[in-house]
C-alpha cells in the first residue's frame, strides 16, 4: 500500500488530509518512487511549525521546533502527482546520496530552515553566502596538483546577461570540474508571496523568471482556479495556449540564434535575433506586452482577440515560420556548425535520469520528460533526442519549434467565438488550510507551483520550482572532461534562468 496521496495536475487537498508518515517510511517510499518507479521530484520543502499536524505526537523529545517536510513527486506512469509528508526536527538522514535528484532540494532546505540532511555529500548554500563569513566567501571544490589551474568566471560577465559565478578546475584546456555558484538574483520572492493573493502577486510571479511570464501565470491561475473551482471557457484556454506556445517559439528561436552566435556563425545568429523579435511582437499583438505580461488572469485571459486580429497573427506566424526554416536550415546544413555541436557537453541518459533533468535538457538526453504528456492522457509525444549533447539540445528545440508553430496555426484557425474569460468572481479568501499543486511545461521545462493556504484563506507558503533549479547541476555535469572553450555553447544549449533559480 503506497503511503502517497495522488493528485491530478492542479489538484488540491486539505492539509489535514495530507498523508504523513515516519521518516523511515518516508525515505524508503521516496527512494523507491524516484529510483524504481521513474518518479521525478517536483518539489521538496519544509513547512514551519505552525501547521495543524504539529500537534500530533512526533518522535522529537527535545523542545525544538518541528517542521513538516513536504514532497511532491511527478509520476509519469500513473499520470499524476504524488504527495507525502513527514515531520522532522533539526536533522534527518539525507536522500541525496541514494537519489541525486534531491541534491539541490536538500541544500535549499538546509539553507532556508537549518534542518540538516545528515550525510549530504556537498552541503553548502545554493543561494546565500555563508552567514558566518563575508559575503561571497564560501568553500569551493578544489583540486591539487601543479598542472591544475582554476578559472573563475563571473559573477559579472561580459555581455548583458544575469550574474552567476562559475569555477572551473582545469588541466590545460580540459575541464575536470565546474562548480556553479548562484544566488545573486535572490529577491525573496517566496516570502513576498506569503499573505497573498494580492495586487502584487501577479507582478511578482510574472517576473520570477521574466522570460517565462506566461507559463508562470498559467500555473498561478491554475492554482486559483482549482481552489475556487472556476472553469475557464474554451476560448480562454485556446488563447492561453497560443500565448504559451508563442513564448516557447520566441525563446527557442533566441536560443538557437545564440548557439549560432557562439560558434561565430553569423547569418543564423542575426536572422534568429530578428525573427525572435517578430514572435515577441505577436505576443504583444495579443496583449500589448512582448512577454505576455498581463494577459493571463484567473478565469481566462484579459484581452480579446478579434477575427481580424487572429487572421493577422496567422499571417505573421506563417511568414515567420518560412523565414525561420530558412535561417535554421542554413545552420543545421553547415558541417562546421554541426561539428561544434556534436559530442559537445554530453549528459548521458543515466546521469540525466539520476540528477533529475527536466525540459529541453532532459529530453535531449533521451528522457521523455514533458509534463504536457506526463500529467494527462492526451497522447502527447515529446520531442526526444538520444545524444545528450549540444546538437541534441538544439534539435529538440528545432522539433519543438515545428510542433509549436503547427499548434499555434491550428489554434488560430480554429479559434471559436464565445467568452474568453469566466464571469465567475474570485472570492476574497481562498479555501482554508489547503495545498494545491500545478505544473506547466514552460519552454525551458516544467515549472511547479505549490500553494498552501492558512486559516484565513491567504497564502501561507508558495513554493516555486523553476526548471532551472533541476537543471543547473546538469550543466556542471555536461562540462566534465570537456574543453573549457566549449563552456559558452554548453551554457547556451541549456540556457537556464538565474533569476528563476534564485527567486
Amino acid at each position, binding site marked *: 500500500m503506497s503511503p502517497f496521496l495522488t493528485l491530478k495536475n492542479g489538484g488540491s487537498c486539505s492539509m489535514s488530509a495530507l498523508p504523513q508518515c515516519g521518516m523511515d517510511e518516508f525515505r524508503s517510499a521516496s527512494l523507491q518512487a524516484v529510483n524504481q518507479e521513474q518518479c521525478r521530484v517536483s518539489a521538496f520543502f519544509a513547512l514551519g511549525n505552525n501547521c495543524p499536524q504539529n500537534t500530533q505526537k512526533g518522535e522529537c523529545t527535545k523542545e525544538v521546533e518541528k517542521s513538516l517536510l513536504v514532497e511532491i513527486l511527478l509520476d509519469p506512469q500513473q499520470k499524476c502527482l504524488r504527495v507525502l509528508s513527514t515531520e522532522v526536527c533539526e536533522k534527518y538522514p539525507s536522500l541525496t546520496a541514494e537519489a541525486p535528484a534531491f541534491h539541490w532540494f536538500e541544500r535549499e532546505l538546509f539553507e532556508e530552515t537549518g534542518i540538516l540532511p545528515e550525510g549530504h555529500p556537498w552541503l553548502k548554500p545554493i543561494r546565500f553566502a555563508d552567514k558566518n563569513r563575508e559575503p561571497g566567501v564560501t568553500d569551493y571544490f578544489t583540486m591539487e596538483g601543479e598542472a591544475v589551474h582554476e*578559472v573563475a568566471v563571473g559573477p559579472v560577465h561580459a555581455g548583458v546577461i544575469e550574474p552567476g559565478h562559475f569555477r572551473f578546475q582545469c588541466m590545460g584546456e580540459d575541464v575536470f570540474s565546474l562548480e556553479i555558484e548562484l544566488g545573486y538574483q535572490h529577491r525573496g520572492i517566496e516570502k513576498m508571496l506569503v499573505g497573498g493573493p494580492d495586487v502584487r502577486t501577479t507582478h511578482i510571479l510574472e517576473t520570477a523568471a521574466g522570460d517565462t511570464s506566461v507559463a508562470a501565470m498559467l500555473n498561478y491561475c491554475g492554482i486559483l482556479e482549482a481552489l475556487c473551482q472556476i472553469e475557464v471557457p474554451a476560448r480562454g484556454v485556446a488563447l492561453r495556449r497560443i500565448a504559451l506556445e508563442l513564448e516557447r517559439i520566441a525563446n527557442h528561436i533566441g536560443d538557437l540564434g545564440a548557439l549560432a552566435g*557562439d560558434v*561565430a556563425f553569423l*547569418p543564423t545568429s542575426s536572422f534568429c535575433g530578428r525573427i525572435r523579435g517578430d514572435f515577441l511582437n505577436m505576443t504583444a499583438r495579443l496583449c500589448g506586452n512582448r512577454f505576455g505580461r498581463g494577459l493571463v488572469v484567473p478565469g481566462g485571459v484579459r484581452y480579446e482577440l478579434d477575427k481580424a486580429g487572429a487572421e493577422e497573427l496567422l499571417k505573421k506566424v506563417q511568414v515567420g515560420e518560412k523565414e525561420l526554416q530558412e535561417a535554421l536550415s542554413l545552420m543545421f546544413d553547415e558541417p*562546421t556548425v554541426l561539428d561544434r555541436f556534436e559530442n559537445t557537453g554530453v549528459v548521458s541518459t543515466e546521469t540525466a535520469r539520476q540528477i533529475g533533468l527536466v525540459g529541453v535538457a532532459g529530453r535531449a538526453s533521451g528522457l521523455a520528460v514533458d509534463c504536457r504528456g506526463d500529467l494527462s492522457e492526451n497522447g502527447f509525444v515529446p520531442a526526444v533526442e538520444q545524444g545528450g549533447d549540444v546538437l541534441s539540445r538544439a534539435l529538440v528545440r528545432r522539433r519543438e519549434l515545428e510542433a509549436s508553430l503547427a499548434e499555434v496555426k491550428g489554434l488560430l484557425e480554429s479559434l471559436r467565438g464565445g467568452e474568453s474569460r469566466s464571469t465567475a468572481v474570485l472570492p476574497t479568501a481562498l479555501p482554508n488550510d489547503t495545498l494545491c499543486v500545478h505544473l506547466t511545461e514552460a519552454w525551458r521545462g516544467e515549472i511547479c507551483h505549490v500553494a498552501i493556504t492558512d486559516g484565513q484563506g491567504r497564502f501561507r507558503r508558495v513554493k516555486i520550482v523553476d526548471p532551472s533549479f533541476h537543471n543547473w547541476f546538469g550543466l556542471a555535469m555536461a562540462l566534465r572532461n570537456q574543453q573549457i*572553450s*566549449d563552456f559558452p555553447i554548453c551554457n547556451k544549449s541549456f540556457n537556464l534562468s538565474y533569476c528563476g533559480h534564485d527567486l
Partner: protein
Amino acid sequence: MENSLLVWLVGLLVALVGAPLLPGIINKVKAFFAGRRGPSVFQLYYDIFRLCHKASVYSKTTTWVFRLASVVVCATTICAMLLLPFAGCASPLFFTGDLILFLYLMGTGRFFTVLAALDTGSSFEGMGASRECQFAVLAEGALLAAFGALILLTKHLSLYGILNQMDMRFWSLDGTALLLVAAGFFVVILTECCRVPIDDPDTHLELTMIHEAMILDNSGVDLALIHYAASLKMWCLLLMEILLVCPRIPGSPWFALVGEVLCVLVGAVFVGVVESVIARFRFVKVPQIISAAMGASLLAIVLLSLFQK
C-alpha cells in the same frame, strides 16, 4: 631608381594609413551576410581616435613589461613592414635573408604580447597566452615552410626576391606547388590575424578568446596601438598573399600600386566571406588545420625538389 623609391614610400604610406580599413571591410562583408547594415568601414579609425583620447588604466599587478608590450608590438610590425616590397619596388632596406628577420620581428611582437598577458596574472589572459603560443608555434612552421617552397621556386633569398618574381611563368610551370603554398599561406593569415575559423574577434566570451583574451587588460592608447598593429599585420600578410597569387601588371609602377592596394582590399572581402559562411572550429581542430597548412607547403617543397626543371 629615384622613382621606384618614391613609389615604395607611397606604398608604405598607403599601407600605414589604409590598414585600419581592412577590419572595417571584413565586418561590412560579415554584416552583409548576416542581413545587417553593420558598422561603418571606418569604424577602426573612430575606435583608434577614441582610444587615443582616453587614459590607459594599469592594473596594480602589472609591471613595465605590460606598458612596454603594446609599443613593441606596434614598432616591430612597422619594422617588418619596412622590409616588404610595394608595387614591385624593393624596400631600400632589403637584403638576402630578410625574410627571417621579417618572421622574427613578428615573433618579437607576439613574445611581448604574451609576456604582457602573463604579467597581468589573470586566468583568462594566461589561457589566451597559452593558446596563442600553441598555435603560433605551428603557424610559424607553416610560414617557414611556405617561404622554403618559394625560395626553392624562385632561387631567391629575400622577401623582394621571392614575392616579386612571381609571374605567370611560375604559375604555368609549377602551378600545383604554388597553389599549395597559397592555400597554406591563407590559413596562416587566418591564424595570425585571429579570424574565424581559428579565433573569433567579435566574441565577448572570454573563455573562447585567443588574441582578445590577451589584451583584455589593455586600454587607452595601448589598446589603440595593439588594434592598429593588428590591422598592419593583416595588411602585410594579405599583401604577401596577393603578390603570390596575382600576376604582375606591366606598365607604370603607380598603376601597379593602385592595382595592388585594390587587390588587398578584395582580399579582405574574401576573408569576410570565409568568415561568414563557416563556423569557428573547435580548439582541438585548430592545430590540425594549421599543421595541414604546413603540410601543404612541405608538399610543395617535395613537388618542387622532385619535378622542377
